[in-house]
């Protein structure tokens, strides 16, 4: 199981999409998961494809082709606005 987290404005688009994926042996990346999510919600897919959106696996920023494993946590991070 891979858990998905959506922060900031991204959380507004996740009402009807999966919050986790089964990782059935196949090689999985944030990019593949983004494609799966886009099939569920085109609006979310568009938001996730914005170039400023970063992806973290287990709380580390990674590239979109990072291999994820069962038990990993993927977080989608829009531009930060704290401070």
């Amino acid at each position: 199981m891979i858990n998905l987290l959506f922060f900031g404005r991204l959380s507004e688009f996740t009402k009807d999409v999966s919050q986790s994926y089964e990782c059935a042996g196949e090689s999985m990346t944030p990019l593949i998961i983004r494609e799966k999510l886009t099939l569920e919600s085109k609006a979310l897919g568009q938001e996730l494809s914005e170039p400023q959106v970063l992806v973290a696996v287990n709380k580390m920023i990674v590239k979109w082709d990072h291999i994820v494993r069962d038990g990993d946590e993927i977080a989608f991070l829009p531009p930060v606005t704290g401070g």
Partner: protein
Amino acid sequence: MSIQEDDFDIGVEHLRLKSAGNGVGAIVTFTGLVREFESEPKSTDFQRNLSTLTLEYYPEMTEKLLSEIIQQSFDRWPLVAVSVVHRVGSLKPNDQIVFVGVASEHRIEAFQAAQFLMDYLKTRATFWKKIEADGQSHWAEAKVSDNVAAAKWEG
């Protein structure tokens, strides 16, 4: 370094920095406050009355990022002590959001490090602001000026 819902006390934070060690000659602090008016995104004249500011963060990751930013400030300047406090949760106009304090021997590095910490915190630490104003809510947009400010510390 602390991420907390509770308010912080500048007097307490300042005393901690003052007592951080021998040779402290300069303390610079920055405090960010919730402003009562919220400029409409992409407009300079239309302002709305802010009622609530909600700060979201990514537990564990945000702490780790803040620690890294603080470590970088020590790598860049000869500092005695650094303190960063960031509030999360629901805030009201004039509430304190963030505190950055730097103690050092001389003032130049304290000013520089405090600015560096704020510029990096604004552009790299995983906090997100949701603004409620005039009955409507929206997520704050990242500011180009913050990215410009952070970029000047690179390279």
